[in-house]
């Protein structure tokens, strides 16, 4: 009977506090994750919105190609109408 009481005492004084302590820490850790996840969700949504202009890159690409083509044509004309520097070699 004495051993039984000792077991009860150990259960109440040692095991129960340890179980509560561990469970409480798990709960606190889980609670601390929630705000971080919500912040990440907000940032991900904002980042996705920031990339909405990415579709315009296709037009930028087209304009860059057109511009370079125009510059190339202009350069070709300059190449025809201007003398080369070889003429003024010292």
């Amino acid at each position, binding site marked *: *009977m004495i051993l*039984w*009481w000792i*077991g*009860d005492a150990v*259960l*109440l004084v040692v*095991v*129960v506090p340890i*179980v*509560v302590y561990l*469970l*409480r820490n*798990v*709960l606190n850790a*889980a*609670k601390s*994750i*929630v705000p971080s*996840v*919500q912040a*990440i*969700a907000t*940032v*991900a*949504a904002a*980042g*996705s919105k920031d*990339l*909405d202009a*990415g*579709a315009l*890159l*296709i037009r*930028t*690409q087209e304009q*860059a*190609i057109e*511009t*370079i083509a125009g*510059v*190339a044509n202009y*350069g070709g004309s*300059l*190449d*025809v*109408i*201007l*003398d*080369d*520097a070889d*003429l*003024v*070699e*010292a």
Partner: protein
Amino acid sequence: MTPVLAFAPAAGVMILAVLLIVAALVFYLVSVIVQLWKITEGLDVVIAGVGEIVAKSAPVNDIVTTINQHLDAGVDALEGLLVKKAGIEDAVGLVDGMYPGSAAAGFRNFPDSAQITPPRIGEVYTQGTLTLARLGREAPIAAANPAGPVLRNVEAGSLAARLLYPDRRQKRPKSLARSPVIGADSPEQYEQRDDIGAPRKRMPTR
């Protein structure tokens, strides 16, 4: 007769302790489950946002690479044209005149150009300026009289532009003198005139 539920007090305390542990387990584990549900909901939003980011940024790499390739080709062509027409030294001087200090970097396709001391084309009219003159009225040096005809004949541009050069240029010589070099370290130094900076000998008439 012994009661059915009769038990020792120590056993009752044991049962109470176990019930306490079970109650604590239930309370905390349910709380953890609720928090995990919230985390799952948040991660669903995150995954949706990240998915959109991945989808929207997927073509960026190819587009930017294509743009860079075309820009590289344009830079190569313009550098080559500038060096071909103006010569490597004057080309470096022209670029340095527009963007001071850029001559130190040199041209991308002409690694030796970084070693060239750029002539001060921004201060002295040289072949570069005369070349601009050939382009027509837009060049300041070509606009001799805004009311007069355009110096460049658009129908025979090359011949008209050639006439802007000195007479000896018309004979198509094999070589011409290079542009003058000025500055403290120029090969030919000139004495400073004494009257520069001195009081005027005679005031201008009004």
